[in-house]
């Protein structure tokens, strides 16, 4: 790995550059790698399917509240959307965790940003879950 230096020129930035000689990830980083890969396969189907449905099969202008209501009348789409919501925040959260790690060498700033990331992901996942639950019940 080439000597990439942090903002103060002292702390090496762990930049996971492909091809560069690097250490095998460990700890929370290894867990994040696994979460990203496992949920990634799921999202490849769920997100592309979602985008195709709301932009190609249906014109986006036609996807107002009537469309949402009709779709959430079917358990298949409720399951699809709720799985996608969870997988998306797990994937995005774990991916951002790794990126944040790479560009935040200072431990105190890293702790703050990790806490913010977890709060945003958990909060929005909970909000999305409540929205789906309220619509279904």
């Amino acid at each position: 790995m080439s000597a990439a230096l942090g903002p103060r020129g002292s702390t090496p930035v762990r930049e996971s550059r492909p091809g560069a000689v690097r250490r095998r990830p460990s700890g929370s980083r290894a867990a994040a790698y696994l979460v990203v890969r496992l949920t990634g396969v799921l999202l490849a189907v769920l997100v592309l399917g979602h985008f195709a449905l709301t932009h190609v099969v249906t014109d986006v202008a036609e996807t107002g509240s009537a469309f949402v209501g009709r779709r959430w009348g079917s358990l298949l789409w409720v399951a699809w959307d709720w799985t996608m919501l969870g997988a998306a925040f797990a994937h995005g959260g774990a991916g951002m965790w790794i990126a944040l790690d790479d560009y935040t060498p200072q431990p105190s700033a890293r702790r703050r940003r990790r806490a913010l990331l977890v709060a945003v992901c958990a909060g929005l996942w909970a909000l999305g879950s409540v929205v789906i639950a309220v619509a279904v019940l």
Partner: protein
Amino acid sequence: MSTIQLAFAVALTAVLLGVAAFAAVVGRAAVRSDGGSHPTRRLAARMLRTPEERAELNRWAFYLHRVSGVAIFGFLCLHVLDIGVYSLSRSLYDELHTVYGSAPMRVFECGLLFAILFHTFNGLRILAIDFADLGMAPARRLLAGVVATTALLGIAGSVVILAPVVT
């Protein structure tokens, strides 16, 4: 433009600015690992590279993967919030949702499509590299496939998305 539509436009602009700022951070790190902004030092760093590091295209794919990932995450956060309005009031949601059909938003949706396609196929390429233990050359050939698929599906999808406002 109503208040909620304006709020959405402001939030989307904030997301786009955030993505641009993150892209700048990634770009600066890229220049740093190239030996810095000084040309002589950059040349030296280039000559001191290990064979494993001589994979420029894989490297740019990595940077693009990262920036597209952050962009999609930013939109995901905004999208969950805008769907949240559906719980508050259906008519307010419909008012907000008309933004999605507007011409500038459709252009953004095309960009989002390209980001999702590249991120998906490049992610699957990374899995293939991990599991099939691919070397440098097959990884590069796969990258060509990723770029071609992204371009093909992206252009086809963009034609469908933009058609209602172009004609």
